[in-house]
C-alpha cells in the first residue's frame, strides 16, 4: 500500500464529515473516491494533505505515519494534489506557478536561493517550460496565471502538481467544468501520468470518466464508506444507487 487511511474521522462542530473511514491505495493504482455532494470527499483530501488535522485515525504514506505532519512535508514526501476550485497563484506567471512546486523535491535554504530567473538556459526554468510544452501549454508560460481561461488553468494546476514529482497524486474533480474534448484530453494526460507509475486518487462526479480511468472505486455517503468495488461493478451495487438516486421504495 502506498497510501493507507485507517479509521479516519473528522467532525466540524456536531457534524461528522468523515466517519471511521478506512481504505488503501496500492502503488500504481487508480482509485476513485465517489459519492453525492457533501459526502466528505474533499474533506478526505484535506485530511490526507494536512489542510485539517484529523480527529482520530491515521494516514500512512509509504508505510510511515504522516497524520500529524504539516502539509509542506507531505508534498516533499511525494503527496501532491489539485483543487476543486482552481488555486493557482494569480500574481505569478504560469511557469512560475510550476516552478513553485519543484521546490518540494529538494527543499532547504540553498534550494531557496537557487537562481530560477535567468532566461531559458536556467535548469529549473527549462524543465518547467518542457513540462508545459508537453502539456501543450508553452504558449501561456509567461502569462499571469489569474488571467487565463478556466480549462487552461485546470491544466496548469495538473502540470504544477506533477512538478513536485509526486508518487501519489490526488485530483479533486479534475473533469468538472470541462467540455467533452477537454475531458478526453484530460483522460489521455492522466493515462500517461499513470503509466509513469504515479498512483492516482480521483474525486469525480463524471462516472463515465471514472469508469474509463479508474480500476477501483470507494463510495462515500455522509462521511462513511458504503461500498468499495471494481469500477465496472459500481452500477450493480444497490447501496450506491440508493445514495445517488434515492431508495427505490420511496421513489
Amino acid at each position, binding site marked *: 500500500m502506498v497510501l493507507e487511511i485507517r479509521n479516519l474521522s473528522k467532525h466540524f462542530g456536531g457534524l461528522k464529515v468523515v466517519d471511521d473511514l478506512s481504505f488503501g491505495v496500492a502503488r500504481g493504482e487508480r482509485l476513485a473516491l465517489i459519492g453525492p455532494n457533501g459526502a466528505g470527499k474533499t474533506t478526505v483530501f484535506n485530511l490526507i494533505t494536512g489542510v485539517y488535522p484529523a480527529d482520530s485515525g491515521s494516514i500512512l504514506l509509504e508505510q510511515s505515519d504522516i497524520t500529524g505532519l504539516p502539509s509542506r512535508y507531505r508534498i516533499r514526501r511525494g503527496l501532491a494534489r489539485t483543487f476543486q476550485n482552481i488555486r493557482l497563484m494569480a500574481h505569478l506567471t504560469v511557469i512560475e506557478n510550476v516552478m513553485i512546486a519543484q521546490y518540494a523535491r529538494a527543499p532547504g535554504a540553498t534550494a*531557496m536561493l537557487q537562481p530560477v530567473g535567468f532566461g531559458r538556459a536556467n535548469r529549473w526554468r527549462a524543465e518547467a517550460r518542457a513540462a508545459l510544452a508537453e502539456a501543450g501549454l508553452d504558449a501561456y508560460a*509567461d502569462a499571469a496565471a489569474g488571467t487565463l481561461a478556466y480549462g487552461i488553468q485546470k491544466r496548469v494546476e495538473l502540470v504544477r502538481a506533477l512538478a513536485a514529482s509526486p508518487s501519489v497524486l490526488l485530483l479533486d474533480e479534475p473533469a468538472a467544468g470541462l467540455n467533452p474534448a477537454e475531458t478526453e484530453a484530460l483522460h489521455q494526460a492522466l493515462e500517461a501520468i499513470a503509466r509513469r507509475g504515479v498512483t492516482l486518487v480521483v474525486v469525480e462526479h463524471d462516472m463515465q470518466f471514472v469508469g474509463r480511468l479508474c480500476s477501483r472505486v470507494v463510495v462515500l455517503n455522509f462521511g462513511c464508506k458504503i461500498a468499495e468495488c471494481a469500477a465496472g461493478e459500481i452500477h450493480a451495487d444497490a447501496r450506491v444507487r440508493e445514495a445517488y438516486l434515492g431508495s427505490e421504495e420511496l421513489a
Partner: protein
Amino acid sequence: MSGYLESVLVLLAINAILAYAAFLPMVAGQLNLGVAAFVAIGAYSAGYCSNSFSVHPVPAALAGTAVAGAIGWLVAFPILRTRGIYLALATFALNQMVQGTILNLDVVGGASGYPVPAHIGFAVVAAFSLAVILLVFLAFRTRFGISVTAVSDDERVADLMGLSVRGLQSAAFTAGAALAGLAGALYAHHFNYIEAQNYGVLFSIYIVLYVLLGGTQTVYGPLLGAAVFTLLPELLRGSAAWRYVIFACLIIAIMSLRPQGVILKRAWFSK
C-alpha cells in the same frame, strides 16, 4: 559636486534602500507601518557604536543593520501571528513604542536629538545603496522571489506546495528590518545628527508610499517610487509655497491612473 546636489543624491541613495525595506515585507503580503522604527533602531545603535566605542563608522553601520535585523526577527514572531489590517496596526504600534522608548533614552540624548560626529561620505552611501539594489534584484531572480509572492497570493496552497510559509514571511520581514536599519545608520553618519521625532509613523507611511507609487509587482517599482518622492519635491522648488500642493496632486493623479503602481509586470499585458 555642489553640497546641495550631493545631499539630494545621498537622500536618493538612502531612500532607495528604504523603499526596499518596505517592499520586501509587502511582497510577502505584510503592510509594515513600522519601517521607521527599524530606521531609528539602525540609526541609534550604529551611532551609539561609533560614539561610545569609537568603532569606524562603516562597521558601526553594519552593526546597526544587524541590530535592526535581529529585533525585526524577534518581533516577527508575535507580529506575524496577525494578518492584513491587524498586522499593519501591530507594526504601527511597534513604531510608536520604539519612538517613545528612544525619546526617553537619555543615553542617546532623548528628545534633544543625538549627534553622530563620525562621517560616512557620499561614495560609501552610494556603494551601499547600489549593493542593496543589486542584492534585491538577484534575490528576486531566485526561488525566494517567486516563493515569497506565492505566500502572499495563497498561504494555504503555498504550504501545500511545500513552502515554509512562516519561514518566508519571517525572512521577508527580517530582511526589510535590516535594510531599514542600514538606511538609518547611513543617514546618521552622513548627516551627523538624528532626532527620534523624525522616525514616526508618518515617515513609515512615506516609505510605504514609495513602494505603492512605484508598484509592488517588480523590483523596479520601489526604485522609481523612491526617485519620484526624492526628486520631485526638489524639482518643484521653483514654486516655493505651492510645491507640496503640486506634489500631492501629482501623487493623487498617479495613484488614480495606475492603482497598481507605475511599473507593472510585463505578463499583465499579455492576454
